[in-house]
């Protein structure tokens, strides 16, 4: 292939090389080039930007990022992904070599589910890609990382569940590979009245850790659709990652999304939902469990553009060791979005005195007939609770773990799909969750 992995730094040529290698249609090449221009024109994030005020990016040497060489062959599903427990209807692996469909169940086949490599889909199913890719959900203009992904995503995936189809078993999309710079891009859409669950899993591949995973996730729920979506960031503990995720929710559609973070040493996520038509409904869940010196920054946006929308957000974190978290959440209500009902809650449980959790709520309300509330709590382990549990024979470590598991139930209770809920619980509380001080029992 045309990409030369030894070429230093990312250049405009990297964009053309990638488009050539993937034999992309002209419109996609043009879109990548335009995104590259935005990338070059956008200054690097600085601590003086409000969004980056508490988030240290000094580790990132922009000029030393190099494009990923395509792998020989395709990446399989890493053993760390609980494929068997999830029993997916479709399994797809995203890597620099492209998205590879591992498995499609008869259920998904008869429902007409589309699961394709994104570059291939741009050729064969442009009607499912062209309108939605890097346009209204995650656009280059939204920032440096977003522009970089739009210009140079590699190994993206398209998932589409057609109008009226209902899928009981979840669709699993795994981000894998061993490239130093990984830029997965998931574009997923549900047609009118469709119902499906999608689980996106950023896996620890056991291979060399990435310098940066810069991923984008664009979700579209058409009128009356029910989308259950989960993102699991379970990268190796020395990985660094940035996620830009936005769901566009249409008339009377329902989104229930859950972002779980347990891996990586640095994770910055924008989690956003736009309620574009009347009666849209978004439940936004987040759960993160950090130890040692892990750092997580969540910026969430509940963007109400139309009347009678409801959004309900709950992000809960458990921090141990010297972990740090930043949560900043904004509820935006457009002047047109009368009768909006929006709620935002962030809670953090600090297990050790070396941890710190910052919580910054913001409301931008421009309509007058709305109900918007927010809350934030940060707590520590209650000694009386530990005493009570230990008085029944549990060791201190068991008691602590039980309290932590219980802490996440408030979030997990809001995940509508039982199978998805179970794998998320396992990700948060199983032996892989947390590290150092946060080791499971």
């Amino acid at each position, binding site marked *: 292939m045309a990409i030369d992995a030894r070429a230093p730094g990312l250049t405009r040529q990297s964009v053309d090389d990638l488009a050539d290698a993937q034999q992309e249609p002209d419109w996609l090449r043009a879109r990548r080039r335009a995104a590259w221009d935005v990338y070059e024109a956008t200054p690097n994030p600085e601590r003086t930007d409000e969004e980056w005020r508490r988030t240290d990016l000094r580790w990132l040497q922009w000029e030393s990022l190099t494009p990923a060489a395509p792998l020989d062959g395709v990446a399989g599903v890493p053993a760390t992904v609980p494929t068997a427990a999830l029993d997916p209807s479709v399994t797809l692996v995203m890597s620099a070599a492209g998205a590879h469909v591992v498995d499609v169940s008869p259920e998904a086949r008869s429902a007409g589910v589309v699961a394709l490599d994104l570059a291939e889909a741009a050729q064969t199913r442009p009607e499912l890609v062209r309108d939605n890719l890097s346009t209204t959900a995650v656009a280059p203009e939204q920032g440096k990382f977003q522009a970089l992904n739009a210009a140079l995503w590699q190994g993206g995936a398209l998932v589409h569940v057609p109008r009226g189809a209902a899928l009981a078993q979840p669709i699993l999309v795994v981000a894998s590979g061993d490239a130093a710079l990984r830029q997965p891009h998931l574009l997923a859409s549900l047609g009118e009245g469709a119902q499906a669950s999608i689980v996106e899993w950023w896996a620890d591949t056991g291979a060399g850790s990435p310098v940066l995973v810069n991923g984008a996730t664009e979700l579209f729920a058409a009128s009356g659709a029910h989308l259950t979506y989960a993102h699991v960031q379970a990268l190796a503990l020395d990985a660094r990652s940035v996620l830009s995720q936005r769901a566009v929710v249409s008339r009377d559609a329902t989104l229930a999304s859950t972002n779980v973070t347990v891996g990586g040493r640095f994770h910055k996520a924008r989690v956003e939902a736009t309620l574009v038509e009347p009666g849209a409904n978004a439940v936004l869940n987040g759960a993160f469990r950090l130890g040692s010196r892990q750092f997580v920054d969540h910026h969430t946006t509940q963007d109400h553009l139309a009347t009678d929308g409801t959004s309900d957000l709950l992000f809960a974190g458990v921090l141990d060791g010297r972990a740090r978290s930043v949560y900043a959440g904004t509820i935006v209500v457009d002047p047109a979005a009368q009768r909006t009902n929006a709620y935002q809650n962030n809670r953090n449980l600090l297990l050790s005195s070396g941890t710190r959790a910052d919580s910054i709520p913001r409301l931008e309300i421009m309509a007058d007939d709305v109900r918007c509330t927010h809350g934030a709590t940060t707590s520590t382990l209650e000694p*009386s609770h530990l*005493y009570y549990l230990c*008085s*029944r*024979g*549990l060791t201190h470590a068991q*008691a602590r773990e039980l*309290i932590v598991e219980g*802490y996440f139930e408030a979030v997990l209770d809001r995940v509508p799909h039982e199978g998805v809920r179970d794998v998320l619980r396992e990700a948060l509380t199983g032996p892989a969750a947390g590290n150092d001080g946060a080791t499971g029992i």
Partner: protein
Amino acid sequence: MHNGSGADALVIDDLHVTVNDMPILKGIDLHVPKGEVHALMGPNGSGKSTLANTLMGHPAFEVTSGSVTFKGQNLLELETDERARLGVFMAFQYPSEITGVRVSNFLRMALNAQREDEISAMEFRRLMMEKMRLLRMDPKFAGRYLNEGFSGGEKKRNEILQMAVLQPELAILDETDSGLDIDALRIVADGVNTLRGAEMATLVITHYQRLLNYIVPDVVHVLIDGRIARTGDKELALELDEMGYEAITAAQEA
């Protein structure tokens, strides 16, 4: 009355305990053999709950002198969870509410903590349902979060349910009657009476005589200002009910 001199008894010898450097227990001697129910009565602030929590190993209570042995072991050397696994159980006056932790999951974990081999899910379910029937508890209770949103009566019944499942060898009931109406009190007392037997020593701590109509004690102790002021049989509780604690205090001071 100290006839049950078996090595398994709870033996408290000249126990002194302080909280934040303030002396609360000032020399307690108590001997509770297996198979007996002892009631510990006393006015507010006399040190009843301090004694219960000292036996359970609450970190806020500091033993300054004296000893506590149970089953021949020095209890004071053991952590709270080690005491529990030795067979000590305390029904809390104010049980903690722990969100997200289901009663059944917690109980199964607690039971497994003191067993050599894990109980099977089936066997545990059968055991729990049997005990819940005994305490006239709705089976739905098992799926609720531990004490969260429970009424006072439900919390106390949940304590006795744990006791019934864990089958301790030393049970300490810390004011289990407080806040209970008469029906709940009967159910709780029935539960305790069913569990009473040759293998369990029981210490019932209460302010009021009422509970002792239902859980009839072998021995009654009166705790006043950190010391056992009187010891007698169940009639002593009735006497206290009539005369009040002041009579004993006055007799002591005379």
